[in-house]
């Protein structure tokens, strides 16, 4: 009985296409604020469409492996394709003393101490949290905080400080407990806002004066499970710390769900620094938006040519899926790579690193 199901298949394809066109802008904002704003000026949309058509024409008959010079890697979930690239970048070395001093200098971290009390206490000679160990009221809390600092327990400290405010600059100081190589800069591209496959997982690390970018690009969506298992070891490694842009609301929950979809157990309890929150705190009101693209232009002075709009990525990947033409994927990969590099540089700037992310 292939016949009725053929027809059924085509019916759903048509519905999917029709809905896709309407939804190029009709995005349900309540699910991922910030990254996918529901309104974009039409000229951008048309421009991106033309870009896609140019790419299809330009890359006709080109094979995937020709266009993307990477290698196949084997991982627990199967095989997937890895693209590597690097550029110059430096981050401050780890500085646990500076981190400790910053944390311990802030008495308001202890429950019950507000700004007024802090002033009073400091006036009476309680300069740091270590001093509070002598104080009958606050000694217990202070001792706990001291322990966390002594152990360099970043997770605990991030949670402690984050309770107060997700965007507290002190969190950036805490990140100095980590060496540059501990940071995993993460950015994913997906086929939609949720309930659809991830099509590109981008990971970057700073080491020895370079930022090394690893991009796991799915040749087809059945490689998703493999790609997830490929990056999991890095994410769950001892001492790893995650840095993202809006990853709290989008990237991390998304990865969690896809892991659950495949039945892959994971903890993902590493400390997480979401640059969006810090950026908003620093630059809100200074620029039109705090989107990564805007900050990239305004703060880093970077202009992108022929960039694909974030919300058009699903359509570009779907076009590749249906035609086999790798052209539409080219700007997606570049977009993701540039996102990761800018993310790392903004992180360095917000933290106040010496090189300022140059």
């Amino acid at each position, binding site marked *: 009985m292939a016949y009725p*199901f053929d027809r059924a298949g085509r019916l*759903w*394809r048509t*519905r999917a296409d029709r809905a896709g066109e309407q939804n190029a802008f009709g995005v349900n904002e309540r699910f991922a604020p910030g990254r996918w704003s529901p309104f974009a000026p039409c000229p951008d949309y048309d421009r991106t469409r033309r870009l896609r058509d140019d790419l299809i024409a330009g890359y006709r008959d080109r094979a995937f492996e020709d266009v993307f010079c990477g290698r196949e890697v084997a991982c627990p979930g199967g095989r997937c394709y890895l693209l590597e690239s690097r550029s110059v970048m430096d981050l401050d070395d780890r500085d646990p003393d500076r981190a400790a001093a910053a944390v311990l200098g802030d008495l308001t971290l202890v429950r019950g101490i507000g700004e007024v009390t802090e002033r009073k206490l400091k006036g009476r000679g309680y300069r740091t949290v270590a001093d509070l160990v002598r104080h009958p009221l606050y000694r217990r809390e202070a001792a706990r905080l001291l322990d966390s600092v002594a152990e360099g327990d970043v997770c605990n400290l991030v949670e402690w400080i984050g309770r107060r405010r997700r965007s507290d600059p002190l969190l950036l100081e805490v990140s100095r407990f980590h060496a540059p190589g501990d940071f995993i800069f993460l950015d994913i591209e997906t086929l939609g806002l*949720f309930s*659809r496959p991830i099509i590109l997982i981008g990971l970057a690390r700073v080491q020895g004066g370079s930022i090394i970018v690893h991009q796991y690009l799915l040749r087809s969506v059945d490689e998703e499970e493999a790609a997830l298992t490929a990056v999991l070891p890095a994410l769950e490694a001892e001492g790893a710390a995650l840095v993202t842009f809006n990853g709290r609301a989008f990237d991390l929950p998304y990865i969690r769900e896809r892991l659950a979809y495949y039945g892959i157990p994971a903890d993902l309890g590493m400390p997480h620094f979401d640059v969006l929150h810090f950026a908003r705190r620093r630059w809100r009101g200074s620029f039109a938006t705090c989107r990564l693209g805007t900050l990239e232009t305004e703060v880093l002075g970077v202009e992108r040519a022929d960039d694909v709009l974030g919300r058009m990525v699903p359509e570009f*990947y779907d076009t590749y899926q249906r035609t086999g033409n790798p052209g539409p994927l080219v700007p997606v990969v570049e977009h993701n790579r540039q996102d990761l590099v800018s993310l790392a540089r903004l992180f360095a700037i917000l933290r106040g690193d010496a090189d300022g992310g140059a």
Partner: protein
Amino acid sequence: MPTAVRDFLDLLATDPRFRESVVHIETTPRREARYGDLSRPLPEELRAYCDGREIRLYTHQCAAIEHLRTGENIIITTPTASGKTLAFLLPVFERLGADPGATALFLYPTKALANDQVKVVRELERESRIRVDAAIYDGDTPAGKRPVIRERSRVILSNPHELHQVLAWHMKWSRFFRNLRFVVIDEAHRYRGVAGSHMAMLLRRLARIAGHYGAHPQFVLSSATLANPGEFAARLTGEEAIAIGEDGSPGGEKAFVLYNPSAGGGGRSAHWVTKDLLLASVESGCRTLCFTVSRKLAELIALRSGPVPGISAYRAGYLPKDRRAIEDGLKDGSLRGVVTTNALELGIDVGSLDGVIISGYPGTMISVRQQAGRSGRRSGESFAVLVAFANPLDQYFMRHPQAFFSRPCEHAVVDTGNPYILSGHLLCAAAELPVDPERDDRWFGPDLAGMLAAFEQVHLLRKASIGWIYAGQERAADMVSLDAISSDTFRVMHGARLLETMDRGQAYREAHPGAILLHRGETYVVTGMDLEQHTIRVEETDTDTYTQPLSTTDVAVVREIRRRDIGGMQVSFGDIKVTEKVVGYTVRHYGRAVSYHRLDLPPLRLETKGLWFTLPDRTAEVVAAEGRDLAGGLHGAEHALIAVMPYHVVCDRHDIGGLSTPLHPATGAPTIFVYDGYEGGIGLAEKAFALLPAIVGTAHELVRDCGCTVGCPACIYSPKCGNQNQPLDRGAAVSILGDLAGRLSVTGPHSSNP
């Protein structure tokens, strides 16, 4: 001792206004309660709850408890006031009390019903002290509350639409699903036909996900009376269920009156007559619920009852707080009479009433039973009155009371093989968890491999090592809609005040510019309609007139997809467009048309799939030679075909529509159309096209062998006819169908594509 009910019935028998029209009274004697015993008593907290309210369990409640205790699924079809809810609440709470992690999901067809029932559940929770944190989880639940409910509640009340969306997030529901012991489906009879197919697939997706977390919940279906409860439950849930239909609850004497305003030769319109009956009932002291077949009539009757206080209309389009106020008023007695559409057929608690007036046959015996079942007390009398319209269908029942009272409730059919519905839900399932053809064919049937392959062709699914995964750009649950209700809603505004909402069809027919609109007893005139903004503006007015729309319905052939030429007949299947155009309206004063006005509204369009065939010239000639009416015969044949289609195509007769005409522009000949009532088509006419010889044969037998003379609801009268079942000619219909059946049986059932 005289009672209000007795007073009213005596009035009907003696008052010259009424007595000529009382055709028949069927009295059901009072019924003693039949109590049951449990093999093992209920736990103490629940026993205390029952004792505290002087509740002794009836036989059917005990049966429900026993079967659920042994791990079976059940479908309860006892009437509304028989304590059905308690029959399943007690065993569910018993289990949840014994197992501190156990959870239960309660599904209702509407949010309104869920809102009503959560009070009952919470009350049992409070008084039995069995903590379940009962909560509603639906589209109205604020985002902030959702995580807590998911994490903590053990009884969650929701509806199919919400479940359809939520399944993709099952990771967030893992605790709830892991411990899921019961799935309760209330008003289950609503899920028949296409709606049933969707619900059946949704329940299979749910069971699949529950199984993923290691749970195997029991199904509890609470339903109106059906001819085939066991079969229906099995089709809907995919599992065997025990049918519990013997009602052990007591009942007072009940008088069911068949009332025919046309009997005395009177020509008064139905709504006047209904209003008189309603007022008589209320003034006798009876708390009365009056059901009507249309929203308009509900308002009209309530309006005309104006002088008597305590009467209100009720419609689904009212704002929720207004509806709640009316429900409460009926319950506490501050409202003595309510006129409603079938919106109040649902089990929303309005207390028990003295009498029910049913204005116009509602279309199915299921509805008659549900509506009549709203009146009835444990002891003491109650009544139901069916007021017949001039429609031949209603008149048939008046002439044959025994046929009415012995007519069984309809079969509820659920098709689990419709490829369009099945495939849509397969996509959703793949987005929820990878599909494993070996494990999942129990949910999707033997054709699973074929569907997966077809979807891979169009890049919506992709085969991965773990199974087939969803690869579409669109969210699967957004593409698959559970019903055909459009989100094309219009707002009726009086100044800045929102009166009510309605869909586009209703707006064009009842709230067009110039229409007189009744709302909660007030009369308004529509002064403007903004199609862009979906807003209708009204002003108050003081008038005795009302308006009636005039519309024309047309079917146009868009594209023929398949054709068969058989025995001189040409049968086609393809894309058609059904257009209803509201062309104007009449202003009427006490039933007489006073003026006519034209309207310029865009047409209402339904693009769907249908089949059509023409009558060969020979056949038409024979009909003419016999001196019969061709149009009446075509019309009758169309009704008969639609009446038998559900048995061949497995749908509900409300899922399909038809049109017949002695001359159609596309064919130039007498033509009958039968089409799917859903945008884009849903596979019904397509299947009928393949089975047409059998369908025509059955239709012919139905009409030929019917014992009636001029036609009856068993053969050619349709409850859905837009033309008041006119014109109809039974003899011509027999002739036509006989001829067609003969021609179609000449060749076999294989089609040829054009």
